[in-house]
């Protein structure tokens, strides 16, 4: 075998020329540099890109090796570099998306398969006991009941609309497992969202509140939820997220029903709900769509609340949120969050770049 000299380089993502070179290389391999990528490397030979790979938080993605240079350990080099970078950022639990035909390659690089969806995507993680450990934790809350249901909420922030939905769902079942989306990519951090929900539903004895972590609507299972770019990826990711729920989470807790609020506005969430209705019944899980709460003819939504907050109309917020949220918003703890909302150009979720402090910017 000929000896080649390969040079490894971190890509300055804000350097247009460097970025374009990687994008071009990826395009040749039917991939694109996804919007939420916050760290990329490339391997060059004589100034030409021969391999590349990226990180988006704790997810390795956009990995490609020129077939001409395969079998020289380049994929290993790319993955090693990405894993080392993630670890140095304190991200220890890593995930990777790949095509089924490449799953074997990544399993040699220390990744374990979680699930495969028909669209030809496999999700893998870097620890053999990742999802099983999460399920073991969940199973502690398993209780037998006539009807065990579930609801997943982001609550950015917790509104009367959420409270209404949760109350309605809780009344219609014996035990309700509520998952709070755990990704720290909404304006309100996960701990705050979790605490407000928890306090706001205290009067409902049959609701168990859980942290969604990596396996429910997260940067891992459903990144487009946070980027809000409606494209074909939404379809695949919805499917993947819902399949993980159906195959692992629901059986762990004996969940037979999932509640969801109607989604008139957001196409991504709308799509997700649609997929849920198609897929879940096949796993013996009923999907019930509940009409959302309207106040004075307007549907209550967290994005509406954030809009008012952006325009400093706290008096208008008061009507839309439970007391617990209102009190929080008026407290000192909310100062930094309100400031963040004030600085936002619009849209509810902040982009990957803003709060993933990669080294590159």
């Amino acid at each position, binding site marked *: 075998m000929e000896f080649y000299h390969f040079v490894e380089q971190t890509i300055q993502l804000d350097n247009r020329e460097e970025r374009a070179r990687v994008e071009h290389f990826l395009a040749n391999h039917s991939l694109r540099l996804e919007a939420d990528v916050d760290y990329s490397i490339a391997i060059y030979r004589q100034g030409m890109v021969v391999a590349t790979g990226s990180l988006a938080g704790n997810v390795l993605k956009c990995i490609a090796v020129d077939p001409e240079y395969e079998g020289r350990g380049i994929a290993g080099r790319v*993955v090693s570099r990405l894993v*080392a970078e993630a*670890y140095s950022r304190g991200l*220890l639990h890593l995930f990777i998306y790949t095509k089924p035909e490449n799953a074997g390659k990544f399993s040699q*690089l*220390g990744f374990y398969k979680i699930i495969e969806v028909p669209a030809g995507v496999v999700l893998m993680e870097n620890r053999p006991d990742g999802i099983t450990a999460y399920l073991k934790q969940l199973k502690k809350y398993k209780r037998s009941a006539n009807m065990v249901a579930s609801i997943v909420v982001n609550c950015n922030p917790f509104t009367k609309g959420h409270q209404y939905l949760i109350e309605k769902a809780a009344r219609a079942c014996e035990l309700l497992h509520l998952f709070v989306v755990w990704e720290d990519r909404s304006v309100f951090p996960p701990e705050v969202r979790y605490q407000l929900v928890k306090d706001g539903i205290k009067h409902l004895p049959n609701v168990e509140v859980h942290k969604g972590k990596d396996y429910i609507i997260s940067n891992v299972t459903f990144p487009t939820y946070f980027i809000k770019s409606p494209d074909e990826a939404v379809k695949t990711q919805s499917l993947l997220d819902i399949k993980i729920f159906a195959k692992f989470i629901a059986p762990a807790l004996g969940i037979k029903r999932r509640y969801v609020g109607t989604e008139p506005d957001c196409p991504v969430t709308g799509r997700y709900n649609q997929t849920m209705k198609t897929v879940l019944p096949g796993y013996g899980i009923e999907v019930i769509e509940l009409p959302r709460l309207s106040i004075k003819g307007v549907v209550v939504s967290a994005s509406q609340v954030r809009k008012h907050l952006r325009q400093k109309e706290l008096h208008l917020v008061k009507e839309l949120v439970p007391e617990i949220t209102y009190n929080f918003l008026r407290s000192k703890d909310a100062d930094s969050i309100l400031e963040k909302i004030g600085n936002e150009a619009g849209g509810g979720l902040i982009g990957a770049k803003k709060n993933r402090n990669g080294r590159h910017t």
Partner: protein
Amino acid sequence: MELKKTGMAGTLESSDILVVIEPKNSEGIDILLESVVIKQFGDQIRKIISNTLRELGINQVIVRANDKGALDCVIKARVQAAVSRATGSKECFWRVVES
């Protein structure tokens, strides 16, 4: 020595080993090993990992290692480096591993 956090050393390139060291709540050295030569050298690799850890006084630990055919001295060095990162120790225990 006490492990404060997860430490990692090494790469997945040929002739190297990627070692990840995590603190564990209970006594014991748990080794999850993958190796391209596990049939021939699995036991030997485990022995080097646990001996190196014992020498450093680490006995509550989970080790995840992915070996790509590393030599014994490389395994030892990678384990030491991972430990030093996991303990956050400034103390230097570098010396010639084997000559």
